[in-house]
């Protein structure tokens, strides 16, 4: 007796083929080629709200049209997921911090370029102790934070500054979504987090900020990262994105009607009001001026910062098991400066496009 009739066999074959093609097509990454459609991912954070505004106000579209390309700006609700999607090849560009750029796409072998250095945290990330008022009191406590994030990095740098180490305390991985609720529970006595959670926690009784990112200025950097191969094959993408960004910067930095309207939109999109958003901007050093961003990217301090970040990442196993030392992943900076293994350069800081913006050549 036949197991299946020819007709069902045909359907079965068709179905396996179909499912296989579907799965395979979602798993294979596309090679970087010259193209005219691009996808940019962003997530909610004070320094990245301009992307949402730029999309909504049509500024990104305007600059895309100028260079004859189509740029789709997509908001992703989960920050890490957006970086993972970028690393997997679903997006051509994505917003992320300098540390995550090194440990996720670069460590994952995706050659990435920091196209726009948008801002650095200047008090937006902080360490809060309940009932205690000095950093040294953190020793022996359980500290709630998003493990392996910039909060963790901030904690490591803070401990460096008082000659302590992570061995002196217990790190408890806590989801950022639950950080505020966690702080409200009696057994949580120390947290490291970022705004707007930080200001919400500081508003609670007995909360003392004992360290914040203004003590390590310029080390937690928010940037727009683009796939290096895509950028190389499509300089238009770099020009359009940089042009759009600094147009938004120029608009939002002014206190005229247009600037206030822009910041109000961004405030609304991030779930706060204009006063709340301005408070977050106050602890964020935005590079409204392209020339400032260029100077920051070209400075020797950035190399020093990335050396700290690479060491932290290596110590925590974030560079992968194949990494022999902190220099496993090479980084390139403007002016031919490099860090780490030049043969494995995966993260590039490039001021070319921001320089074009500063010179008004976009």
């Amino acid at each position, binding site marked *: 007796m036949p197991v299946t009739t020819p007709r*069902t066999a045909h359907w079965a074959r068709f179905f396996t083929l179909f499912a296989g093609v579907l799965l*395979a097509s979602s798993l294979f990454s596309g090679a970087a080629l010259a193209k005219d459609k691009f996808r940019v991912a962003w997530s909610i954070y004070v320094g990245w709200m301009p992307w949402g505004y730029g999309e909504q106000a049509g500024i990104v579209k305007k600059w895309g049209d100028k260079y004859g390309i189509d740029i789709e700006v997509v908001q992703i609700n989960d920050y890490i997921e957006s970086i993972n999607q970028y690393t997997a090849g679903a997006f051509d560009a994505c917003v992320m911090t300098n540390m995550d750029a090194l440990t*996720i796409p670069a460590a994952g072998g995706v050659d990435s370029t920091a196209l726009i250095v948008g801002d650095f945290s200047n008090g937006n990330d902080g360490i809060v102790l309940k009932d205690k008022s000095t950093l040294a009191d953190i020793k022996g406590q359980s500290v709630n934070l998003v493990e392996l994030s910039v909060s963790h990095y901030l904690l490591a740098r803070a401990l460096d500054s008082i000659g302590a180490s992570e061995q002196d305390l217990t790190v408890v991985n806590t989801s950022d979504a639950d950080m505020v609720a966690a702080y409200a529970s009696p057994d949580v006595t120390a947290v490291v987090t970022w705004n707007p959670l930080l200001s919400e926690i500081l508003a609670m009784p007995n909360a003392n900020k004992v360290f914040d990112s203004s003590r390590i200025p310029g080390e937690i950097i928010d940037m727009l990262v683009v796939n290096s191969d895509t950028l190389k094959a499509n300089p238009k993408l770099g020009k359009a994105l940089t042009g759009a960004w600094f147009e938004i910067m120029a608009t939002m930095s002014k206190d005229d009607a247009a600037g206030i309207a822009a910041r109000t939109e961004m405030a609304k999109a991030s779930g706060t009001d204009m006063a709340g958003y301005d408070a977050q901007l106050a602890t964020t050093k935005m590079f409204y001026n392209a020339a400032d961003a260029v100077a920051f990217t070209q400075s020797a301090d950035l190399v020093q910062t990335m050396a700290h970040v690479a060491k932290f990442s290596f110590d925590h196993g974030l560079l992968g098991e194949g990494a022999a030392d902190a220099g496993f992943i090479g980084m390139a900076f403007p002016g031919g400066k490099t860090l780490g293994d030049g043969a494995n350069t995966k993260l590039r800081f490039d001021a070319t496009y921001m320089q074009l913006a500063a010179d008004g050549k976009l």
Partner: protein
Amino acid sequence: MKRLINLRPSRSTGILLGLLPFVVLLVVYLAGSQARLADNPNDKLLPAFSSLGDAVERMALEPSKRSGDILLWTDTAASLQRLGLGVGISALIGLVFGVALGTVPYLRAGLSPLVSSLSLIPPLALLPILFIVFGLGELSKVVLIVFGVAPFIIRDLQQRAQELPAELLVKAQTLGASTWQIILRVVVPQLLPRLLDAVRLSLGAAWLFLIAAEAIAATDGLGYRIFLVRRYLAMDVVLPYVVWITLLAYLTDLLLRIASRRAFRWYHQLNGEGN
């Protein structure tokens, strides 16, 4: 009659057919992995089997550089302890309340609406409240599992107790048994195998709540590890952990099934499952 619904595969064909989807999945994975690795040898999304093997060796056999523990086992122990406590407490609560509500109409009238309402609350929505009330430690994780699982078991056992043939209870009463004796000698023995059934059915939900709780705040556990290494896209660790959790879930279910068959042979014969 030759109809598709009447055609039965032989035993060996059946096994082969069952394996086929797994083989297809493996082949698709391998093809995808190779294509991505050819493109970018450092790709982390679909690691090759060799790097999966390395990760398993690292997690399951070698002590961690930072803590000196063997991570897979400490994670497994922590998770199984939470799961065991949560499900065990739920089973106990389920048995006590299920029997009480199923046999005593006054208790049923008083408590049944409350239990029904509680069972309708999505437990994950309660998480922020649980954290504030019970803290971020072990207690809130166990309580989350109990909250998610116990009302289901209570309702199921109550239903089963009400389904017991009235003749059984009448017979016990004509033999002079008191309520207490009937509960201890008739209802509880009848319900124990059904309790095991309910526990087996609720294990899936228990795992869900366990992983969710560990993802939010923890220092160890299987869910903790998956959500931690996700931060740097270490799929070489995530994929083996998912397979390991699946295997653990399968083994717990198998053990419960065997235990039930050993301990309550009469029940399985009654249900026509044979020996």
